[in-house]
Each structure stands twice: as C-alpha cells, then as structure tokens.
C-alpha cells in the first residue's frame, strides 16, 4: 500500500520532522512552521499519510473555549517507512557525491 504513496520532497520533509521524535504527538501549525509548508500543501500530505496508515491522529481538547486541536504521530509502519526513505535518500545522495567528487558514500 505504501508503494502507492508518492514521496514528493515535501512529503519527505514532513516525514523527516516526524522521524526526529517518532513517539511525540505533533500539531499541524508547528509542522507548518518547522517545514515552511503552507496549510494548503501540508494538510494534503498529512491526509495521504493518514490514509495509508502511516500516521495516527487524535483530537486534543483545549481549555478556555479554544477549539480542539488535531495532533499526529507516526505509526510503527510509518516510522519504518520514514527511516527506510531516509536511508535511501542518504544512499542516493552518497552515490551522487561519489559520482561527482569521488568521495565515500
């Protein structure tokens, strides 16, 4: 199922944020600020990740009449995919570096 998910640079950016603290629940606005993605770009990515069960969601009730907030964190399969994507990206970057500069991956 995860094979059908398009790994755009923006999706990788979001996954990277989650991988840093895989067990922590994150808010949409915080992710937007950290990745620099606008709401119109970020939320479709979150929706797709949740649709493929790579992300779990929950509502957090707030006090003082502030509306509840939606929070997100990676599922175990999401964390696995995010890590594999991260290492694949690194290896691709390494291959490129070797090809260009003759260094080690």
């Amino acid at each position, binding site marked *: 199922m995860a094979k059908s998910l398009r790994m755009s640079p923006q999706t990788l950016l979001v996954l990277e944020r989650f991988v840093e603290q895989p067990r922590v629940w994150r*808010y*949409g*606005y915080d992710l*937007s600020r950290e990745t620099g993605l*606008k*709401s*119109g*770009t970020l*939320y*479709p990515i*979150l*929706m797709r990740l949740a649709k493929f069960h790579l992300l779990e969601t929950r509502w957090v009730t707030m006090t003082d009449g*502030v*509306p*509840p*907030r*939606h929070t997100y964190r990676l599922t175990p399969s999401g964390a696995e995919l995010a890590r594999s994507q991260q290492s694949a990206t690194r290896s691709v970057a390494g291959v490129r570096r070797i090809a260009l500069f003759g260094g080690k991956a």
Partner: protein
Amino acid sequence: MSSGSFARRLATFLLEWAISFAPGDTIEWGNAVLGELHQVDGDWSALLWAIGGASMLLKHALVAIVFPGRNHPLSTSRNLFRQGGIVRKTAIYGTTACIVAFLLFLFAPVFRVAVHVSLAQWPPLFHVSPFDRLGPDPRLEALKRKAIQKRDGEALAFAAVHTRDQSESVQLAEEAVRLNPGLTWVYGVVAVDWSFFPQVERWTSALQTFDPENALPHLIAAERIDIEQIENRKTPRNASEESSEWKKAMAAAFQSPKLDTYSKQLEDLNRTVLLRYQINDPFLISTDHLWYRVPSYTAADSSRYAELLLEDGKSREDQGDRRSAFEHYSTVVRFTQTLGENGGFPMARCLRDAFQRLGSLSVKEGNSQQAELYSFLANTADSAGKEESFAVRTQLDSREVSHWNALLARASGVALLLSGTVLLLCVVSLVVRRRSLRLAALQPSGMTLAFSFAGAVTALFSSILLYISYRPYAEITQRFIHTGDNTGLADLSRFLAFTRIPLGAGGFFGKYLSVERFAFYFWCSVAGLCVLVLMLCISRFLIRPNARAANKVG
C-alpha cells in the same frame, strides 16, 4: 492574537464556509485546519492559513463532484455528494428544467425565427456568399411551386427577387411579367441584382417603355456595357476611350427626370405575398439599405460621365459657347440631385465642381448675385457629401444598436449549437456506457452530469439572449407585414446584414478580419481538432490495448 479582528473573522468564515462544502472524508481535516487557525500568530498569517485550507477543501469538493464514486467515505450527517445527494439531485433537476424551458422556447414562433436568423452566419464558412443561404430555401421553393400552380404573377415576381440563382430568377421574372404586365418593374430589381445575362437588353427596352422617365434602365444598360468591356479587357483608361454606346446610355440616364429603384413597389410586393402565403421570414422583407438599390457601377459610371460633361462644358466655355457649357453643368447638378439618397454622395465632388463652374460662368456674365448663390451651393454640396460619406462609414464601422444586437444573436447562436452538441454527446455516451435506453438505467456519472448541466444552462441562457436580441426585429417584421408600417425596416435590414457575418469575422472581435480569412482560420482549426481527436482515438484504441497485451505477455 486578537480573535475579533476583521482578517481573523474573515479567515474563520472562509474556513467554515469551505467545510460546509467539503466531502465527508475531508471534514475532519477541515476542522483540523480550523482548530490550528486559533494558534496562528498574526491576523494576515491566519487569513493566509485559512485560504490554503479552504482551497484544499474546495479542491476535494470539486473532485467529489466530478468523480462522485472515487473513495469518498461519507459522514452520516453530510450526504451532499453521494448518489442521490443534494448536489447530484439539484444538477439532475436543474438540467431537466433547463432542457424543458429550452424546448418551451422552441414552441414560440419568434424564437424559431430567431434561431433561423442566428444560423445565417454559417453559409460564408462553406464558401457561399454572405448574402446567400446554404442551398435552396425550402419555404421559397414551396412558394415557387404554389405560385406556378396558381399562376400567381406577384408570387412569381417575389420568388424572382429572392431566388439566389440567376437563370431561375430571370425565368421567374419573365413568367411573372407575362402573367401580369403591371409587374414589369420587377425587371429593374432583378437586373440590378444580376446585371449581365442574355435577356438584359430586351428587359431594359421593356423598362424604358414601361417607365420612360426613369434613369434606372439606362444605368442598367451602362452597367452591362461596363461589364462587357471588363470581360473583353477593353476597360477605358480615359474619357476619349469611353465607348459611344456607354456614353449614349449615360446621356439618357443624365437626361431622365427621375430615378426610381422600385423600393416602394418591392415593399408592397413583399408584404402582399408574405401575407398571402403566411410566411414569416425577415430575410424576405429586408432590403439592402447599405448598398442602395442601384446597379453596383452607378456611382463610378455617374462620376465618370459627370467629369466628361464638366470637361466638355469647360472646353465649350473656352470656345465662348456659354449656353452649351451652362447646360452641361446644369445636367450634372440635376442628375446628382436626382440620385439623391440612391448613391449620391460619391458624386458630391462633381456637384461641387459643377456649382463652382456655374459660379464662374455667372461672374463672366456679370451676375454677381447668382455667382454668390452658386458658391454657397458648392460649399453646401461639399459639406453634405462629407456628412453622408461619414454616415455611410459609421454604418460600415458598426457602431449601432443593430450591430450589437446582431453580435448578441450570433454569439447566442454559436453557444446554442455548442451546448446542443455537448448535450447530444452526453446522451450518446450515457446510452453507450449503460447499453440501455431505459430511463431508470441511465445513471449519469459525475462528469456526464456536470457537462449536461453546463450544456443545458448554456442552452437556456443563450436562448433567452437570442430571444431578447431578436424580439424588437420580430415586432418590426410583424408590424410591416400586417400594417404596412415600414418604420424600422432599415434597422432590420442592417441587423440582418450583420447576422450574415460569422462571429469573429469583421466587427467586434476582429474588426479587420475578412470573412474569407476567418473561414480559412476556422477550417484550419477544425482540421487541427480532427487530427487531435484522431490521435486520441489511435492512442486509446490501438496503442494502449497493444501495450496492455505486451504487459500481460511480459
């Protein structure tokens, strides 16, 4: 964070509005964006946040309309987009209502005539003259048959005037005059339209006998001689090369006390026959007011002959024969005034010159008062000519209401055809996909429904526009046919003349794009579109199945 600022309130409103449209599976995400809105620092940042979220929700809503079955689990409270949901039902009812309203429009005779008028722009694209129709007019054909059966001279004369086939027109006119010699004037109208045919000489003599004071038969004769000269490549380069036959015809025209183009008789004939045979066709009562009803070479012929007379008068004046010179100049003045509205303005310069010569002749004779009068008349002729020339240019520049109404009628006609095609394609695709003609089985997909709805709304809207733009001219037509009141007939003629120009050629969109060039671009576009459709068909039915078969084998 001030929750009460205008931008923040607008942001909240925008998101809530977008959530109300969102499909079931995205409502939760809409609320997520809304929940975060309260955390966004800065009012304008909050508005940008809301715009981003709202655009995402609306995109999903649009996708849900176009592809209703595509993976949109629905919330129980919001069943807007499911099969039989509010939007779908509204679209189906709306499409049906628009089609029914359009069909009701078709019951109105005025609307049917308006549709007929809006189609007049197509013949030029099929290399038919803009003043012709595509093929024979069935109503005119039926009228001809009835007229021959009943031996109705007036109806035959009517058919002769409106038939767009020269030999048939000539034959019908001869038969009409044979049945009713009082209709000999029809020769004048038909000969002005065609000018060059074997019977024209006989016709001009018959016209001269019928109406001896009229300049028209002489002008027709002069036109025939001119055309003959052009066909034999003997076009005169100066006055000395003009043929004596042509000079004789023009001299007779200049000596004639009147010029009658039989417009009044033609109007009466049109009215009588349309009433008698119950025909409601505005094209059959319009007269070409833009081009008068004189032979096409009249202005050129008259100017050439007037210059010849002025030159001859000058040489006689130099020889001392003032009386003869005076007669020459007076003839030019008299004939130009006879022409009047029938194409007189191109002769304004000749008229001015004639008055000036008459003025100088009066000075030579010591009559200063008369010289002043001629000088005044020369100036008046000059300014009147300029004014009339400006009026004609304005007509051709199309700045009138009739032009805008014609533009609206032509645009509505094109929109009607396009929407009709879209609706037909929708029905065909629906029947082909469902393989059934039963109404219950015809469940349209979201895409088909969207196209049908757009087609039906466009059809209804363009029908209303067409009806509104044509209605005043329908009234002019009816008033003329039933009461003989010809007020507005010139407007009707201009309107109909403009409706014969294809939308995009001349006038509004491409002021300087000729009909011929437009026809070329039109057919290039059609050919391009056909190639595109062919490529799509090849890709869909030949290449893809092969690729699929190859994948299966692989």
